[in-house]
């Protein structure tokens, strides 16, 4: 009995040792993995399902964007193009000013706005501030009728790209001030499209992350738009300072 007990004891000891050895050899098999790793492991076995789900999510954000930037034809039909544009701007949380008026209409933080803008049915828009909104190429169709638009602010718009800038030729006779600073999707190829805006007096191209050599581009822009005051801050022009304190150089020139 004692012998058998001793042998059982030895057996258990050995098995315990072996268990430890096994743990080291196949650590994934014996001890359960942390939850997140197991989750990722099971997700890798479902690549196409994950791809599909991510595709749906992508499509959903795209549809949302499309819906927001849709053509407000119904409003335009019943209230006229001015109200339609104003409503479009306010629902995207932008702001605007009617022609000849001093009062600005703005949507607040939560997207609420007063409906007083309905009183100015016959006035076109003069200044539009679409900073930090999701306006894109298709949304521009809502502003197309305002041939007297003087100022357009598009600071920090994530959906403003080169094609959008090319479309701005619709305001070529009236636009005087354009702010496209902090738009991440604008590249040099799109800035060439600003040549159509002959009457431009003020242009802000600060902090465009898509531009590779901003110094040269700003010089070429100044050459292209000789009557325009170009503001370009937020670029590090000096090559040797790039690794140092990263001091931002301010540049304003008029030619």
């Amino acid at each position, binding site marked *: 009995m004692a012998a058998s007990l001793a042998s059982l004891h030895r*057996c258990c000891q*050995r*098995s315990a040792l*072996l*268990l430890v050895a*096994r743990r080291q050899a*196949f650590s994934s*098999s*014996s001890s359960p993995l942390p939850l997140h790793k197991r989750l990722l492991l099971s997700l890798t076995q479902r690549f196409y399902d994950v*791809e599909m789900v*991510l*595709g749906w999510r992508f499509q959903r954000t*795209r549809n949302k964007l499309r819906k927001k930037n849709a053509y407000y034809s119904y409003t335009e039909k019943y209230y006229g193009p001015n109200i339609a544009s104003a409503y479009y701007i306010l629902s995207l949380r932008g702001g605007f000013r009617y022609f000849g008026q001093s009062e600005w209409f703005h949507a607040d933080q939560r997207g609420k706005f007063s409906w007083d803008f309905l009183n100015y049915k016959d006035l076109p828009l003069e200044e539009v501030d679409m900073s930090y909104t999701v306006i894109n*190429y298709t949304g521009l169709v809502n502003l197309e009728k305002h041939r007297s638009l003087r100022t357009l602010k598009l600071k920090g718009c994530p959906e403003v790209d*080169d*094609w959008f*800038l*090319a*479309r701005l*030729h619709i305001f070529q006779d009236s636009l005087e001030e354009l702010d496209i600073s902090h738009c991440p999707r604008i*590249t*040099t*190829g*799109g*800035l*060439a*499209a600003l*040549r*159509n805006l*002959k009457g431009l007096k003020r242009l802000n191209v600060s902090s465009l992350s898509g531009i590779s*050599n901003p110094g*040269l*581009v700003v010089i*070429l*822009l100044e*050459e*292209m738009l000789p009557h325009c005051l170009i503001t370009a801050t937020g670029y590090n022009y000096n090559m040797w300072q790039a690794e140092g304190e990263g001091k931002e150089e301010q540049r304003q020139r008029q030619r």
Partner: protein
Amino acid sequence: MTAWRWLHVKVRAAGGLLTSRGLRHGHTRLNGPLMLCQNLSTARPLRNDFFKDLEAQLAAMRRKAAEALPGSSWSPVKHHSNLPPERTDIVIVGGGVVGWSIAYWLKQKELIRGGVQVLVVEKDPTYSQASTVLSAGGIRQQFSLPENIHLSLASADFMRNINEHLGVLDEDPVDLQFNQSGYLFLASEEVAHIMEENYSTQRYAGAKVSLFSPTQLKERFPWINTEGVALASYGLENEGWFDPWTLLNAFKRKALSMGVIQCCGEVTNFRYTTNVVTATDGEQLDMSRIKSVRVQMPNSLEYQPVECAIVVNAAGAFSGKLAEMLGIGLGPKNSMKGIPVPVEPRKRYVFVVHCPDGPGLDTPFLIDYSGVYCRREGLGGNYIAGASPEEAEEPDTSNLEVDYQFFEDKVWPALAHRVPAFEKLKVTSAWAGFYDYNTFDQNGIIGVHPLINNMYFATGFSGHGLQHSPAVGRALAELILEGNFKTVDLSNFSFRRILAQEPVLERNIV
């Protein structure tokens, strides 16, 4: 009852036999400590090993048997790993931008995943002679045929949303490096009326184009010499140039991710059947149907016949040669079979010049009525220029050598006359590329061949294949999968016009 239990046990045993090794591992993992005790005895592991080996052998046998079943591509002879599959639904001959665009759209339009099996055959994976990557990469809307304008508009729309179409999950977004600069066409006195007509066609089709008088032109572009210019037309939107290589690779990457099979090889022959059909006017016609395509491997004698239902001829400059393999153009004169596919390679030179005093960021894609064009390349004062040679002076197409004398004689004088700043320039480099030149009417041939009822053409674009590739791919995929054109009606570009000898000509000012 006992019989039933016995059967149950047997099924369980069979299940054990059929389980793969991976599953068995999972089983041992679950009962880890229990198995350990078993490991201490000496007899069991031997038996276990024996069964394991047997199982592995059985699994291998099963795999082999499954592979040898009809319907799989297994063969007892060891072969080239890059061989195309033995059978597929659609073979696209030519892996240029048009070929890959068709492959993408076919996959895009298939109703279920893997519904259409598409094979793209390209003979030169480095694209050293491909028209796609050797072009100037421009897109314009200033055509005179509404079909061409619509193709351009649809392609521009595609490029605008390129990441919605060609974005691949977990890969970098596509950056076409699109340069939003318009085309500027200059017309002389004699051709100004054509430009005006084209302008109204373009406006009607929805293109954003404006006309300039010489004074307005001088005001907008002070560096242009307006001598001899009567009218200019300038594209405001959706025009410019981009990187052809990026577009090609984006199409390819997306198509491959959707399951298109790529094959590097050359189509050397077809196997086809021919039926003699009597037409209503009594003419005897040979109707052919392609059964398989022979794909020759590069640098080897190996080849693979690929059985297929449909062949798409997107071989660009060499599509005429491809059709000749089927006897098109070799029949007797005055018969349908005697009319060749009027596409042949034409060599065009592109010269890169450096001119520090040249026009700046607002340089358009300038096309003079003398046939000379130029555009900006990058920001460092480099420009691309070229011209189309006259019909009688077409250069030899056997190689891609550049004739620098052509620049001295033909391009430079006209260019320097139009833009005086180009008096002082230096040619830094040059290259030559092939046009898939349609000698009949310089427009694309899109559609099925009337005598070969499963060969579709998408060729002969004569220089605008790259810019129209997204829309052409979609149109051809519609034609193949849905039976007719849905978005842009391109029936005027079908093969019928060549048989009827009715050219659909572009009214160009050049």
